[in-house]
């Protein structure tokens, strides 16, 4: 009789735990440029400040960042991306697996080419200095409608961009790069945009 009671209590406990686990949404974000441990641990630290966050895990080698968060708080994809960006990182892709099994994803290049498309490749200068700069510049440019490829070289600070001339312009691309804090020959980042970059991204500014 005593044993039956214990087993019953354990079953109830397991049931309660499973129910509690079901109430958590799982967030997985792939972040580029986690080379510096000071910044990477900083990202983790900033997310730990969220009340109720659980199992914060960050793999510096792969840039995989994940955590669990109570579903009742309905944390949105936009809010997660904004928090990652606030910490100075650029998310490549993000995935939310809600407690009810629904999956939400974001990220990736969405440019669609048409018959009118005129695809060209061009090199331009974009100031930066580290892996985090690389991730930010490339992802920003890849997010511009009309851009199909973007590769930034840390050593010479040259960005090779492939884009559809019917959808965007090289000036527009440089403007977007400057908007996220990186000087180009055509557009300089604002003082605020530059100041908002993480410490390790503070490159030598261009004189214009």
């Amino acid at each position, binding site marked *: 009789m005593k044993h039956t009671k214990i087993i019953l209590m354990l079953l109830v406990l397991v049931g309660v735990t499973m129910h509690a686990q079901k109430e958590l949404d799982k967030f997985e974000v792939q972040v580029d440029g986690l080379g510096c441990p*000071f910044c990477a641990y900083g990202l983790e630290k900033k997310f730990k400040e969220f009340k109720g966050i659980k199992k914060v895990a960050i793999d510096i080698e792969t840039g995989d960042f994940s955590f669990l968060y109570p579903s009742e708080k309905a944390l949105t994809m936009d809010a997660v991306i904004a928090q990652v960006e606030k910490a100075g990182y650029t998310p490549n892709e993000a995935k939310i697996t809600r407690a009810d099994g629904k999956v939400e994803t974001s990220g990736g290049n969405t440019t669609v080419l048409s018959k009118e498309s005129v695809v060209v490749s061009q090199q331009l200068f974009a100031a930066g200095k580290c892996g985090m700069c690389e991730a930010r510049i490339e992802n920003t440019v890849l997010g511009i409608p009309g851009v199909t490829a973007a590769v930034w070289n840390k050593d010479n600070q040259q960005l090779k961009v492939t884009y559809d001339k019917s959808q965007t312009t090289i000036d527009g691309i440089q403007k977007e790069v400057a908007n996220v804090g990186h000087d180009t020959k055509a557009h300089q980042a604002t003082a605020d945009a530059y100041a908002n970059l993480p410490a390790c991204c503070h490159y030598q500014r261009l004189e214009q």
Partner: protein
Amino acid sequence: MRTYITILLAIVLLVSCKKEPVNMGWKYSHSISVKGVNPIGIALTKEGIWLSDGDHFRVVQVNEQGEIIKSIDSLDRPMHIAAHNGQLVIPQYGNDEVIRFREPASPEGGSERIIVSLADSLDAPAGADIRANEIAIADFYNNRVHYAGADNKWIIFGQEGKLDGDFYYPTDVQITENALWVADAYNNRLQKFTKEGAHLLTVGEDQNMNAATGIYVSDTQVFSTDFENDRVLVFDLEGNYKQSLTGAINKPTDILIKEEVLYVANYKSSSLSVFTWEQLEIIEENHQEEHHHHDEHEGVLEDNK
């Protein structure tokens, strides 16, 4: 007669080509793999070398072959550690605590972990140092340094900025007999202060460092890791540049000298680069003068200790 001529020629040769071993410096010797460890801080106790392994939430002791022989686990992102008199000081970036750790006195005993009590809270302590009764902490996100002397009274100095005495994310600190030295990481420089927090010297601003993440001060030299540029820069105590070390260095984070041997902790390659103090080149003074290679000559002399 032939013998005399040979001797005379040898004397003339010796006189005309006077070699003076004046160019001493740190020379790359070898690397030690510390497999499975991504070292950030390095410290020395009587037992040997300890490495903080923030990625794996631990501090480990390694032997000369780089094998882990002890591990202090359950730490929250331990950073630039320090050791004194058998005690390790471990700043934990993740939970804003700095602990004093002491190994058990006997095999049966438990280890001692005491949280350092401070005058104000920390936000991501990235480095700490102890020297007898003194302790100093680099407070990363607050852009400050906390220091307590033998009287155990804390002083806190620094603020975010670029001017002398300001910090932009300090990551490491060292206490010497008369000063406090700080790795002002993202201002890409080192700074020296009095123990009252007054600025004395700024070092390395002209060296194009990209994140001066770690500092080590010996009796005659100051060392800075240059994280993104994969090198360690050597200065004299007045801040004059002396040498750049590059042998097998990959994202260096800290430096230590043990018995005339210099160890560099490489975060990315999970290794220690080992350097020894040696004669780097023999300067042939007379030949230099004959060929008017004054610039080259000066460049070599720059590497002197």
